[in-house]
């Protein structure tokens, strides 16, 4: 069972995140960068599958040079090796371009049985890349998995969305995206941390992966960010002093908003 996990470096959700003024892309220098939390769960699920069925786990990351830190985290958790697609021409790539680039890289890897990804990143939140990747590869897609089980040549997930929970099965190879409910990721062990730097990481440029530079980057993006503005600061709420009529005034407030 050879599994590829998509890992992405994102700004820490606890830090203040900004878009750059010039092209509305993420200002990566302004915030602490971490391996996306949802990806830690994707890595965990891949490691569980490997522990049960054997095989290898490969972390696949598209991102700037600094993303090696996120790759390292995946390797220290226990992934066997990593592929890092890193090229300045990737700056500003949209979801479609990302999926195209990732599909090309997956094409360079041998005998991949399954790709596991987070259902969405905590920065871009398009939530579209896993599905687009499956489409480009011509593989089935099982998205929003809250549990995953493997049985020989098939993968079954419980798919949880606002509409409910469904059980979905597909033949391998397949793309699975997981939600935050799927597991609790392990901490990297000290041995894992020390072993991570000895694990193979192959760094690919666009040319190495056979990616057409015209399909990625800001210029190749099918969508364009036209404008952006920081979220408005939170305004202070309305304060009501209870003068014996607090209950009545709460009900008046709620009914005024059509909430009761």
């Amino acid at each position, binding site marked *: 069972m050879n599994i590829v996990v998509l890992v992405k470096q994102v700004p820490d959700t606890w830090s203040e995140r900004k878009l750059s003024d010039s092209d509305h892309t993420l200002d990566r220098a302004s915030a602490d960068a971490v391996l996306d939390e949802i990806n830690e769960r994707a890595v965990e699920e891949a490691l569980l599958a490997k522990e049960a069925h054997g095989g290898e786990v490969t972390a696949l990351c598209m991102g700037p040079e600094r993303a090696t830190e996120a790759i390292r985290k995946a390797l220290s958790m226990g992934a066997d090796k990593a592929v890092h697609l890193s090229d300045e021409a990737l700056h500003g790539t949209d979801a479609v371009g990302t999926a195209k680039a990732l599909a090309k890289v997956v094409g360079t890897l041998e005998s991949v049985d399954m790709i596991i990804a987070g259902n969405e990143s905590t920065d871009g939140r398009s939530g579209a890349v896993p599905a687009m990747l499956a489409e480009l590869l011509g593989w089935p897609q099982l998205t929003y998995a809250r549990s995953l089980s493997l049985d020989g040549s098939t993968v079954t997930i419980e798919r949880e969305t606002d509409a409910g929970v469904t059980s979905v099965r597909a033949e391998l190879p397949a793309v699975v995206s997981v939600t935050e409910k799927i597991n609790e990721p392990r901490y990297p*062990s000290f041995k894992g941390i020390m072993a991570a730097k000895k694990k193979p990481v192959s760094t690919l440029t666009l040319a190495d992966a056979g990616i057409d530079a015209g399909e990625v980057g800001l210029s190749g993006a099918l969508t364009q960010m036209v404008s952006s503005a920081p979220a408005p600061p939170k305004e202070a709420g309305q304060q009501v002093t209870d003068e014996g009529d607090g209950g009545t005034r709460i009900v008046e407030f709620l009914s005024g908003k059509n909430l009761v």
Partner: protein
Amino acid sequence: MTASVIASEPPRSPFALTDDQRALKETAGEFAAERIAPEAVRWDRDKHFPVDVLAEAGRLGMGGIYVDEQYGGTGLSRFDAALVFEELATGCPTIAAYISIHNMVAWMIDAFGDQRQREQWLPELCAMRSLGSYCLTEPEAGSDAAALRTRAVLDGDEYVVNGVKQFISGSGYSDVYVVMVRTGESGSGGISTLVIDGRSEGISFGPEESKMGWNAQPTRQVVFSDVRVPVRNRLGEEGIGFRIAMSGLDGGRLNIGACSLGGARAALERSLTYVGQRSAFGSRLGDFQALRFKLADMATELEAARTLLWRAAAALDAKDPEATRLCAMAKRLATDSGFNVANEALQLYGGYGYLSEYGMEKIVRDLRVHQILEGTNEIMRLIISRGLLESNQ
């Protein structure tokens, strides 16, 4: 990479951590924040020793941090360990300190045991599936450890051990006791080291001591009454026990100093949050210059202590002859500064700092004992002054 790029990079700081060290620190910090800190106040209140969380720490490699990898250890340096213990102590100094003691036990077996002894005890200790206790102090032998009286008399291929060990961390829960015993004449030359199984016949444990702090780890006497211990459980030759006991102390002192830094850092961080939110006389507390100056001093004292501790740890790793003196200095400074900073942080927290619920008074209580154990800070001064006078002769 072109030459101009290299030229534009600033020189690497000798204090800069490596990628590995940053990752170790991050893992220990996350483990402390998620698995230890949320329960620390409850464990203290209920006098609960969380062996399940210790086993989890063991799985991550925290049970034999500087033990040979061949026997299940992690094979890291003392410097790395100092980083780890500071982080663990941000969650709870008591738990971090117990893990430090456990590591000293595992390290002693690794450093002085033969291959069979290492194979027998280390894999389980490193995984923290079995826990270790270090038995040196006796009711009437503390700072003057060479006066210890627990006696081991040879009888065939066994020692018969009789005596009492005092203030033993983990006592009653531990599986492996590294015990300093008298096998020969009085004084430091008549001491040997035995590894004793906690289930041995004749071993018993005193009642749990009621303490000011360190409530999340048990402290009890260990009582030996005609306990028969195979000679093959002795570490090294007869008569080197005092040397073994002393050799563990430099590292132990670094670790306990690191635990003080972590506890105090957590207290400082909480007080920073508090003064940022709490207002009095129409201003945030954090806007009063008197309090800002206080916070500046606290941060400075911790950073100074940390810098000295790192220096001492690097010296111990490098087997620098100055290491013992530096470790004594670092232990003295880090545990005094750690206690003072935590105490000041409590003061900044006002009345809430005195309430158990907020966890501030617990840190102060926990850090107080660090000035006493692993050699009191008075003994640290003795060691430092001895070195000073010798080097001046």
